[in-house]
């Protein structure tokens, strides 16, 4: 665990994900992925 924390992994986020059901984890991932895709398609003003 110490290795992960020293590497910069946010353990609190992993804990939060563990408290979710697999369906909830995938829904959150999908929101994040859609955001990434939206940003990728965004045009510079």
């Amino acid at each position, binding site marked *: 665990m110490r*290795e992960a924390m020293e590497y910069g992994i946010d353990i609190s986020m*992993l804990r939060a994900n563990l408290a979710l059901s697999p369906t909830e984890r995938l829904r959150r991932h999908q929101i994040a*992925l859609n955001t990434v895709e939206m940003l990728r398609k965004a045009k510079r003003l």
Partner: protein
Amino acid sequence: MNSDFPSLLCRLVDAGVDFVIVGGYAGVVHGCTYVTQDVDICCDFSPANLLVLQEALSGLHPVHRMTPGRKPLELTSTNAGEFRNLYLDTDLGHLDCLDEVLGLGGYDQVKRASVPVEIEGRTLRVLTLDALITAKEAMNRPRDREAVRQLRAMRQLRCKGRPEG
């Protein structure tokens, strides 16, 4: 159209495709926090199962995304036996279908190293955390090593969370 991996996987389950979620998306199922842009599945590459897969993807405009010209997926009982991997793009996102996983073996071994999980009211199979770590260690690309750090931390957190006795 935006990708929608849960809907893509539900289609496969509803059609009766024999498969296991592997790769980075399996890590997401287990609780990893990274974002992955495709879904990897290991599946039975029998022509019958691949034809069921094709039926499940009908209407989603599946194409071979690694081929010049992005040829449409057009499997027949004759050519379905020729494939070992399918790297597809669909209206619901990238879907990579593999007949084996490095470090684990072919579909039978992968299926034995999987567990059922409930997603959107369906039962899907996903690699166990231990098997996913083994597979990621075997791949050993920078992003795999990154994932292994999270997966190991996840395993430790789960062990700590288990009731004693």
